């Protein structure tokens, strides 16, 4: 009797541990892993199995939680990053300069999301920076662009920026639509991802 009771308790414990670990590794906890990270280029992480029937159960669960209705790689690839170039967590108490060049895709965009995978709850209407803005703002040098991430608009009203107001600890998603086949076959050799430099932080915030 004692053995059966012991096995019953151990089974309950095992079921609980198994379920909790599945929720963690499946990305259901905000502090847990996000989408896949099979591909990492300068801190930007992605996984080519997103959206595919070939995705493993972990990637599939993470995408369902953190990127539902994501497209397969032939149509779009997604890179995520939550740290600056120095490896510090991206946060709305700091100001950043994001810069980059051209990308091997038909169209690209960079969007800021809060810790709940949402657009941050602000009314600044500065949620993303995309290829059309890069071309518009930098017509002579569309191959090299930069924008600021901050909770307030830059002093220069024409300077491009993305608002991190109410973003908390946020991350950036780089979307590349209709990527070139070279990117899919050799991502590390083809993509030079955006740089994220921390400019300053509110005094006493860190």
């Amino acid at each position: 009797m004692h053995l059966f009771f012991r096995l019953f308790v151990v089974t309950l414990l095992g079921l609980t541990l198994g379920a909790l670990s599945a929720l963690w590794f499946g990305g259901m906890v905000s502090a847990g892993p996000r989408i896949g990270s099979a591909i990492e280029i300068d801190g930007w992480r992605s996984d080519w199995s997103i959206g595919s029937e070939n995705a493993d159960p972990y990637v599939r669960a993470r995408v369902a939680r953190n990127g539902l209705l994501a497209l397969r790689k032939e149509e779009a690839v997604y890179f995520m990053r939550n740290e600056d170039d120095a490896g510090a967590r991206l946060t709305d108490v700091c100001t950043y300069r994001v810069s980059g060049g051209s990308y091997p895709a038909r169209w690209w965009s960079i969007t800021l999301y809060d810790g709940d995978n949402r657009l941050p709850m602000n009314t600044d209407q500065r949620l993303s920076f995309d290829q059309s803005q890069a071309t518009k703002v930098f017509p002579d040098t569309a191959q090299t662009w930069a924008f600021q991430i901050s909770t307030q608009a830059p002093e220069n009203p024409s300077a491009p920026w993305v608002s991190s107001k109410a973003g908390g600890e946020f991350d950036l998603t780089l979307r590349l639509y209709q990527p070139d086949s070279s990117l899919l076959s050799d991502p590390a050799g083809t993509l030079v991802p955006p740089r994220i430099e921390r400019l300053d932080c509110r005094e006493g915030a860190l």
Partner: protein
Amino acid sequence: MRFFLTLFVLAISAAAAHFLVLTSLPGFIMSKAQEAIAAQGVPLNVWVATPRQTPQTQRVVRPSPDLAYALCRFDTSNGPVRITAPVGDGYGSVSVFNSQTDNVFVGDLSAGSTFTSVRIEPGAGAASGNTAFVDGPGLALIRRLAPTQAEYEVAAALVNDATCETVE
């Protein structure tokens, strides 16, 4: 002996729960998403343009504010579904997802594309040409590049020319 038996039971029960929970998450989340979309007044077999994506209007995780979206809920339990959507001036796509969140089909709606329609048959397997397979409920999604309000309105108007209907 008792120690190894205990360890064995612990490992087996943990592995079973881990696998069951992990593999049921995508279907559970997709089912909840379907319910939430239906609760917002999106009926079966009708394309509905979503509002321009803002922090205040977002309904799914990680929406792109640069895109105009339209959604259609369908269910192949009632027979095959035929989806049509017009080609636009800029980037666009129509994609189909099954109940496990797999993106089983993508059609190009960008300028110059020859896409006209896709037929969704009940069943499973890889898409072939303009035929894809979904068992039971699924979602179709149109994305069009629309970074400005004017471009959003053009994209939203194109939804009137798209169809998502059960066919013979």
